[in-house]
């Protein structure tokens, strides 16, 4: 089939993609690794920043606010370059992977902290009070009452940021990070088929991001509907159903 298309001039590709498959896969894997590590780190740092920003103590709030404002107003590309090249001046030399993931985390933590903060503030104060009145301690109140409700509020914005972060891994190409975009650059320079190469790279990004954002939408809907996300909660609700039916 392919050979028939090729021999009759209907095959649209000029690049022999089968030769590049493993290179592309390596790049794809790198992209996913950067995105996964960058996002997890950004979410953790963002949560810490958000908690700091909702503190009653001004001295705790201040550094978090400064951080957020600073990194929200600097381009990611600059952060990547400074992290990779700049830090060397202080005697710290990060590997490409560390520098890349760290840059993403630094940048997206600023945005996520904004989303998380407004979600935390969005949980009604009376909820905290109701939990306290039931004898839940501070940690349990946060873990079982505030956090799940804040999660619901934060999920849409967080999901947008995750997809955005995944796409932004392409900026890491400036430090030759070996991710998908960097692989694209290298294939393009070796085949001189810029247009075709970047269309294919674009298609791969789409194939990665579209299912991800659809999956996240599905997750949002589940969370909003209060569906169980953990096996323990599924079991609890099943046991409750049984007991309630016989009640």
């Amino acid at each position: 089939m392919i050979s028939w298309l090729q021999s009759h001039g209907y095959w649209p590709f000029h690049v022999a993609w089968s030769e590049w498959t493993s290179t592309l896969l390596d790049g794809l894997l790198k992209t996913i690794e950067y995105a996964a590590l960058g996002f997890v780190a950004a979410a953790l740092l963002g949560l810490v920043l958000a908690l700091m920003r909702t503190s009653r103590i001004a001295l705790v709030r201040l550094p978090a606010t400064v951080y957020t404002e600073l990194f929200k107003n600097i381009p990611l590309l600059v952060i990547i370059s400074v992290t990779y090249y700049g830090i060397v001046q202080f005697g710290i030399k990060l590997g490409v992977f560390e520098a890349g993931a760290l840059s993403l985390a630094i940048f997206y933590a600023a945005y996520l902290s904004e989303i998380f903060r407004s979600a935390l503030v969005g949980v009604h104060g009376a909820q905290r009070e109701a939990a306290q009145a039931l004898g839940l301690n501070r940690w349990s109140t946060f873990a079982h009452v505030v956090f799940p409700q804040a999660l619901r509020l934060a999920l849409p914005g967080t999901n947008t940021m995750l997809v955005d972060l995944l796409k932004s891994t392409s900026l890491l190409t400036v430090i030759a990070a070996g991710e998908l975009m960097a692989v694209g650059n290298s294939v393009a320079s070796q085949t001189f088929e810029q247009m075709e190469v970047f269309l294919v790279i674009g298609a791969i990004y789409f194939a990665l991001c579209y299912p991800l954002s659809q999956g996240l939408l599905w997750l949002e809907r589940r969370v909003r509907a209060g569906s169980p996300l953990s096996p323990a909660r599924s079991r609890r609700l099943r046991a409750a159903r049984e007991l309630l039916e016989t009640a």
Partner: protein
Amino acid sequence: MTGGQTPVVTIEGLVKSFDGRTVIDNVDLTVAPGRIVSVIGQSGGGKSTLLRCVNLLEKPDRGRIVIAGEEVFAGGRVVCDDLARLRQSVGMVFQRFHLFPHLTAVENVMVAQRKAAGVPEKQALETAVRLLKRVHLAHRGLAFPDQMSGGEQQRVAIARALALQPKVLLFDEPTSALDPESTREVLRVMRELADDGMTMVIVTHEVPFARRISDRVVFLDGGRIIEQGTPAEVLDHPTHARTREFLTSFDEITDQETHS
């Protein structure tokens, strides 16, 4: 009146102010086991604040609070070493229910048992189901708060407050946010609790209900207890002008509960 029994709640000389404005002004109150005390009074009179001081959601300025024989507040300080345990023995029901919206009814009743009292899963579930039955809501156990009527939510909130077997239940205008039908449902549950011997402090505007259910009625005005006594004394033969004034504003309210 109470024999020699230890009171469930003892409040002595309680003072609480916000920004220099005294909201609770030297209040004394004792609630004996199995007794029902209703607190009535104008908006802003300090009723909610008084209740919130009992489980130390609000920290008083001065006075003494003893819960079931254990001193929890004295000399301007919280002296109870385990605030969580104190709150487990004082159940609270709010005007606006404040159920946890991300949890089903049955989970709302379970969460404090699991996370505050460390009750095992199976037992917590059984207790929750039993309490939902007690408030006539076993059929709504898997509903989320936003799928329930106000009356149903408030009854779940009562079940939730009962889950840790509190020694006293505090109600802060439990029916003020409800329509007449829901109000009837909630008052019925409260009356059943009263029949079961539950100790309760009820802030309410339902004067007829307070008259029927209470052992004692307290009229709170401007942060002070102006008058207290049996329902007949306070509601039918008030001695203070302020009380009379307040009660006449309720004259037109019909006794909804007798029609249920």
